């Protein structure tokens, strides 16, 4: 082959921007891509939780307390009829004092899509009662069972996703800003400021994370509005998590600062803000994004742990951690294992973030 000439494939490669290169490499990483789409789908569902969940967050069903996950049938007497559920009768076992539910095959209720159900406010703007799926009047549809007040677990998990997933995003915003400002100052200016900030980081890091989170969230006034508690918790999560990120910002800044193109920019009269924004930041944005991706799951976990302990979010704001706090004692877990379903969601979300972050790290590394 002629030496100087490039194939169109090669031309495209050499002309590609940094972002495109990362995207191409990331696309080859199957697990990371699968995780990426999983997360995209999960997050894009957040605005529509009321529509997606068959029941409202707080609607109670006194006749269906601790109702086990319900089966959906497709065949009636050997004939395909579309999805339907049977009715149930409840008896109390006088020996164990447990509720027992028996299927009542004489009553059948169709499961329908796009049904009218419980009314709700969509985005606080307009009223609607349309649900993605639901059951005919008189029947019940608890695909993941119900809790001690007869509230549908599936609906509560879907609603909880809104809180649990956004906690990580808001938390990372807080910690990102803190890390950029403090880490940037520390790395760019050096000197006394650097020493003070580094000491601060070291002190924060010498606390075990969870007890510190617990103490800070317990310090929130007990009669605070639940929405403000949510804000407070995200700020607390972010305010502790920033240290690691700030350290890497500082390290990278120190390394890049010595490069010739930076000295050139400074000599040409660039102001510090200009040099940082235009020449230093682009050099490690990808690294920052990777770190952020990997610390979101830690915040989601932190919130889950705090709420699980009863120190985090409180009802009516419901996250997966709040749901799990119902499963705190061994009796509840042993008798009503479906209360553990939120665990599946927490773990799969965190796995997805970790796989995606890992793939992104490989893709963003120019030497890989």
């Amino acid at each position, binding site marked *: 082959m002629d030496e100087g000439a490039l194939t169109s494939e090669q031309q495209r490669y050499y002309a590609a921007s940094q972002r495109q290169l990362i995207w191409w490499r990331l696309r080859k990483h199957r697990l990371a891509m699968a995780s990426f789409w999983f997360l995209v789908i999960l997050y894009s569902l957040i605005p529509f939780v009321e529509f997606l969940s068959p029941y409202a967050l707080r609607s109670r069903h006194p006749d269906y307390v601790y109702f086990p996950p319900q089966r959906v049938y497709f065949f009636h007497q050997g004939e395909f009829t579309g999805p339907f559920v049977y009715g149930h009768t409840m008896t109390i076992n006088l020996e164990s004092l447990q509720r027992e539910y028996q299927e009542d095959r004489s009553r059948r209720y169709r499961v329908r899509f796009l049904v009218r159900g419980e009314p709700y406010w969509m985005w606080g703007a307009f009223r609607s009662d349309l649900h993605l799926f639901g059951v005919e009047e008189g029947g019940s549809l608890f695909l993941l069972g119900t809790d001690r007040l007869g509230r549908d677990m599936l609906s509560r998990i879907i609603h909880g996703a809104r809180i649990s997933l956004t906690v990580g995003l808001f938390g990372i915003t807080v910690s990102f800003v803190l890390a950029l400002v403090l880490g940037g100052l520390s790395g760019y200016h050096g000197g006394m400021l650097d020493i003070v900030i580094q000491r601060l980081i070291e002190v924060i890091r*010498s606390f075990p994370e969870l007890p510190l989170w617990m103490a800070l969230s317990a310090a929130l006034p007990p009669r605070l509005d639940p929405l403000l508690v949510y804000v407070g918790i995200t700020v607390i999560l972010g305010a502790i998590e920033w240290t690691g990120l700030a350290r890497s910002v500082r390290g990278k800044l120190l390394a890049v600062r010595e490069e010739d193109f930076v000295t050139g920019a400074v000599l040409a009269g660039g102001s510090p803000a200009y040099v940082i924004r235009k020449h230093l930041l682009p050099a490690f944005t990808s690294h920052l994004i990777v770190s952020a991706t990997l610390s979101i799951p830690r915040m989601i976990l932190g919130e889950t*742990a705090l709420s699980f302990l009863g120190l985090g979010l409180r009802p009516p704001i419901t996250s997966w951690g709040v749901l799990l706090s119902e499963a705190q004692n061994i009796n509840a877990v042993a008798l009503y294992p479906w209360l*553990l379903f939120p665990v599946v969601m927490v*773990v799969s979300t965190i796995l997805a973030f970790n796989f995606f972050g890992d793939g992104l790290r490989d893709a963003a590394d120019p030497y890989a």
Partner: protein
Amino acid sequence: MLRYVVYRLLLMVPTLLLVSLVTFVIIQLPPGSYLDTLVSELRASGETTDLQKIEFLRKQYGLDQPLWVQYWRWVSGLLRGDLGYSFEYDRPVSAIIGEHLALTVVISVAAILFTWIVALPIGVYSATHKYSWADHGLTFLAFLGLATPDFLLALVLMFVSFIWFGLSVGGLFSPEMQTAPWSWAKVLDLLRHLWVPVLVIGASGTASMIRRLRANLLDELKKPYVVTARAKGLPPIRLLFKYPLRIAFNPFISDIGNLLPHVISGSVIVSIVLSLPTTGPMLLRALRTQDMYLAGSFLMLLATLTVVGVLVSDLALAALDPRIRQGGGRNR
């Protein structure tokens, strides 16, 4: 070496001082003094306010004096081993906490030992059998271990052991051993119960340790001296143990600094789930009742534990690696 030890010890003093300042700020965070909350809570719950108790607290913490006096009282109290007063037990906390703190240390140390023992063979195997099926499988397990929060693992384990074995895995002692004085039998009983929390707390640390050891060893195995040694006919096992492994081993010690806060965090929440008699449940109770002085003392204690642990690991690393002694700690 002595210079390094002294240097590290001196460095610990300002750190602990700052840690205590941060803790004191946290204590002061809730609006109103703790006494106001206590009085209003006691009134709300219909109890007649115990004036003696209030007076005792006021004197104990110097609540009517300026902040810096309060801080001094609290810190100097801590130095004398005074951790506050528990009304629940009607005794000074330091009298109750001894055993709880000892168990926290036992569990943390056991979790770190577990991490080493499990991570070493798996990490070495993964690195020497790179991209084999076993490596992929172990890598996946490690990721799962990283992603599963420890308290959820504790919950699931509790559920599984209840379903399969029909027994509860909570606690650290059998009921009949609970109040027995310390003896050989009690230690054995403790060991029988210890594996559950140790497994749960150690899981995520083990996972990250495996990843790190594998990466380090892979880097080391690529180096020319390994190729040379292999070319000269050194038996593979001997080669592995003699050189690359010793270098890849460093993070086992240096990582305690990262591992320890994690392990102590884990032990707090796992203890609450499995109701273990460590400091975790006591901390939670103090926080729930917003007894911030008590909670602050616990927080301070846990942080001190972490700082001392990191110090020990740094000293061990310095003993192990001459390069670090030379630097006088400057590169950390």
